């Protein structure tokens, strides 16, 4: 186990020794600060409470983090093939599945770290500018199952749900990276998944077919359970448990493809 951690350490080194990682870090810090300052300058500090702005900024920064994590996932495996370093990596006394697992873990750690930074920055900056509001109005919608509850619970729940969708999207990107060795495809399709999810689920809910409930896209909109109390498909009522189960199946499927292809494939050219 200690030995396996060294593999993760290696992957971490390859992530954090690259300047681009710190450019990404800069974005995650600067974007919320910029939004808060702009709002404060234009509307004054009484217009909003710290929580509302934190929610807004978090949802924006989460998309950013998803894109960054997918870029890291794409680099992590497809990059090694592009650089040619995969040949040096795989001729060590480690199974291919251990190496792939260490890469996957390092990408998830990256995403967790950035989410923690996002939470810390959006909270601190907004409390600093707008002051701390213990019982904020306008943060939790009336339709939410958490209506009237603590803002901490609500924010915690949103972060959790956003993180779950992010894992699925990153795993999807990782699959393209590991199985198809194409970082472009991995990044492109993952961003498509991230951005077009709500559009496609809206489109899908127009038809009455029952299989719609098993399509991946709508279930990435987990926030709808928290805000409106209903599932992401208006004409097909689903529960949060159902959505999580569908995501879990896709999660397992993506990983199965990554691992099977990566562990079997001949490394040539």
């Amino acid at each position, binding site marked *: 186990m200690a030995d396996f951690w060294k593999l993760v350490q290696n992957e971490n080194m390859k992530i954090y020794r690259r300047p681009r990682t710190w450019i990404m870090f800069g974005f995650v810090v600067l974007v919320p600060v910029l939004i808060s300052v702009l709002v404060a300058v234009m509307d004054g500090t009484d217009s909003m409470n710290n929580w509302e702005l934190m929610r807004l900024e978090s949802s924006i920064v989460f998309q950013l983090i998803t894109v960054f994590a997918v870029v890291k996932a794409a680099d992590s495996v497809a990059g090694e093939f592009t650089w040619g370093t995969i*040949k040096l990596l795989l001729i060590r006394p480690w199974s291919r599945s251990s190496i792939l697992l260490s890469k996957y873990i390092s990408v998830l750690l990256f995403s967790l770290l950035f989410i923690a930074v996002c939470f810390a920055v959006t909270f601190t900056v907004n409390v600093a500018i707008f002051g701390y509001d213990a019982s904020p109005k306008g943060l939790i919608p009336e339709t939410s199952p958490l209506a009237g509850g603590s803002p901490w619970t609500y924010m915690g729940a949103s972060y959790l749900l956003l993180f779950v969708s992010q894992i699925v999207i990153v795993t999807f990107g990782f699959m393209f990276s590991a199985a198809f060795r194409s970082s472009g495809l991995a990044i492109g399709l993952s961003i498509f998944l991230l951005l077009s999810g709500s559009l496609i689920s809206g489109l899908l809910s127009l038809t009455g077919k029952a299989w719609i409930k098993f399509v991946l896209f709508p279930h990435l909109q987990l926030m709808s359970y928290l805000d409106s109390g209903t599932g992401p498909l208006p004409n097909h009522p689903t529960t949060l448990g159902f959505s999580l189960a569908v995501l879990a199946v896709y999660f397992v499927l993506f990983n199965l493809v990554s691992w099977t292809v990566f562990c079997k494939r001949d490394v040539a050219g």
Partner: protein
Amino acid sequence: MSQAPIVRLQEVTKRIGSRTIIDRVSLDVQPGEVFGFLGPNGSGKTTTIRMMVGLMSLTSGDITIAGHSVKTAFRQAISRVGAIVENPEMYKFLTGYQNLVHFARMNPAITKARIDEVVELVGLQKRIHDKVKKYSLGMRQRLGVAQAILHRPSLLVLDEPTNGLDPAGIRELRDYLRLLAREEGTAVFVSSHLLSEMELMCDRVAILQQGKLIDIRSIGAQTESSSAAEEVLFEVDQPDAALGILEGQGAGRIVDGLLTITADRDLTAAVNRRLVEAGIRVYGIRKKTKSLEDQFLEVTGSDTIG
């Protein structure tokens, strides 16, 4: 040859689709031996090496390294191997030292002292903390060798190691491989299409053509037969007159303006005296040794890419 071989290829075959890339190749490499793997481009050298280090699967047959099959006991087998497959690709955004730390972490018990020792061995002390993207090809090659020998492997596998190196770099690498084989008993398995290079570097060479092993021969054995009659070339001022003088001395002929006869050592001396006594100026005498290249082309025939 009583030692157990460090590498054993048994009937190794690789098929991709209906194409047979490697066809029943069998060979042994002994500890401490520099073994050359020779063949024209596309003959399957790199494929064979990729199978040895587990980057490619075998269609049939088996490869064992120190007795461990790469198919069933990959981790044991590969832990004895250091390799550079094709170019020494490193993480360009890391320093040379970070690259070595990276690979050192993947093997058990490589100390910091060992990393420093290897850095010194390949002569990179001054530049080891620079980013690899600032390295010249020769320096990358050295770093490649460094990562391959970090864990003191019993077998060093190098695929076209002299590609892109300047003559000084090639010579350095050659001397270093020789040293490694002699001092540490490391077997070196090196592939190349540079014949003269292999001649200088290797104890034995295997010749591969279109996926088939067509010959294995020792390099030493070719130069040992010095007492036997060989083709001897005389550089003289009047080849035709010289040929006339030697009439009755056996079959002499003129090739490219050089008087060519088949002679052993004594006859060579005798011929020289007769020519000199007859007033022919002899500028040079040399044996026509068959280079590996001649032999290679002889054996492989043409360079058809299969």
